[in-house]
């Protein structure tokens, strides 16, 4: 089977549109709301989830035939927890500021339903390579929403992107005020709702 056969492409692109984890299946909402008040933690969180989903998928897929059916959820959790702990340690060593900002939410990737959902629904039945693509696809789908929401919230809530000032000073002189609501988690929920609405209206096609 070719590495990028039509089937594999679908495995990769489906979660970016039709089977989108947040927009279609409405999974992983909690962390999407919590870490998106600024763009930088949103990007790091998206990358972390992508990496962890991809590798957890591969590992589970490799050992899928040896996993005792009765404790398969436990095995999946152990693998995910190990990967999450490693990622969290690496963040603490190489990106301390970001790990402080993400605080508990890195640890909570363990309970992110996207991960468990993909492991149970895909990696348990498929070979490692398609599982890897599926993990990357779902992770990127998740990251995409985080980046959109994070960018809007940081721009309107603080007037910056990635910490750089975007809205020029003269706007503030003319009476422009940052929208404090945008820094609250509630606005993230409303924004995610708007993104889902736009997606359904313009991009979503029934199978």
């Amino acid at each position, binding site marked *: 089977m070719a590495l990028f056969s039509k089937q594999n492409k679908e495995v990769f692109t489906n979660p970016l549109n039709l089977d989108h984890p947040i927009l279609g299946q409405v999974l992983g909402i909690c962390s999407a709301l919590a870490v998106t008040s600024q763009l930088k933690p949103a990007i790091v969180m998206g990358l972390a989830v992508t990496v962890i989903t991809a590798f957890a998928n591969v590992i589970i897929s490799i050992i899928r035939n040896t996993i005792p059916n009765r404790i398969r959820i436990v095995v999946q959790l152990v693998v995910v927890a190990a990967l999450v702990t490693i990622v969290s*340690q690496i963040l603490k060593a190489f990106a301390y500021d970001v790990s402080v900002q993400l605080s508990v939410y890195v640890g909570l990737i363990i309970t992110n339903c996207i991960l468990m959902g993909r492991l149970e629904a895909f990696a348990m039945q498929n070979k490692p390579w398609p599982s890897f693509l599926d993990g990357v696809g779902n992770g990127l789908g998740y990251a995409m929403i985080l980046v959109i929401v994070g960018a809007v919230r940081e721009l309107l809530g603080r007037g910056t992107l990635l910490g750089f000032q975007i809205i020029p000073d003269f706007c503030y002189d003319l009476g422009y005020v940052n929208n404090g609501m945008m820094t609250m988690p509630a606005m993230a929920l409303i924004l995610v709702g708007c993104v889902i609405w736009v997606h359904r209206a313009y991009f979503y096609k029934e199978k």
Partner: protein
Amino acid sequence: MSKLNTNSNAYIIIYSAILVVIVAFLLAFVYQALKPMQDANVALDVKKQILYSLNIRGLDGSEAEAKYAEVVKEEKEQDGQKYYACQIDGKDIIVASLKGMGLWGGISGYISIDDEGKVYGAYFNHESETAGLGAEIKDSQAWQEKFIGKQIWDENGNVVLSVVKDVKDPKTQVDCVTGATLTSNGVDAMIKAGLQDAAKRFLNTSNSDCCGTEEADSCCNGDDKAKCCSETEIKAKED
């Protein structure tokens, strides 16, 4: 090869045991390998926080390290509380570390005190306060700057610096963070508890009072006890 029965109890127990051991070794290895870098990050973060409390903000890692070495002259630890003797533009400033409870978890902070017993600068940190509300004690530089210039102690060495809802005395009181009364109360309690002992260090009056008493140890705080007491005794004799 005969197919293993993956649903037998023995298989499940051995499988999970092996899995857990592998994962444990992996995590232990990662932890050991990354520990030095993490410790360095934590130490640097503490230095940055101390610099923040001295109103030196926005420095990168190596810059902060250099600035810290330039500014901070001495570190002392007393009863679990740390003091840093600093010098900025020829002025002697002492930074006191604070620890307390916020609404959801621990809060901490550094307050720098000039030689008149006034706040030179302040920085607060928290573990898990609500973003946008309690977390403002860390995120809002404007709020931290409200502390600058406030009187910390009255003549008797009681802490009068406080965080309150309704500011009546702008010389000693700081307005609390809107929507975060409980976190602000935590900051208030932390300041009161943390700076009470430090009072003796700054109010010279107490030194002469207690020399020769059992409390001499605590009130000649940190200084060389024999030296500080002998000086006051000599003075008394001369008088």
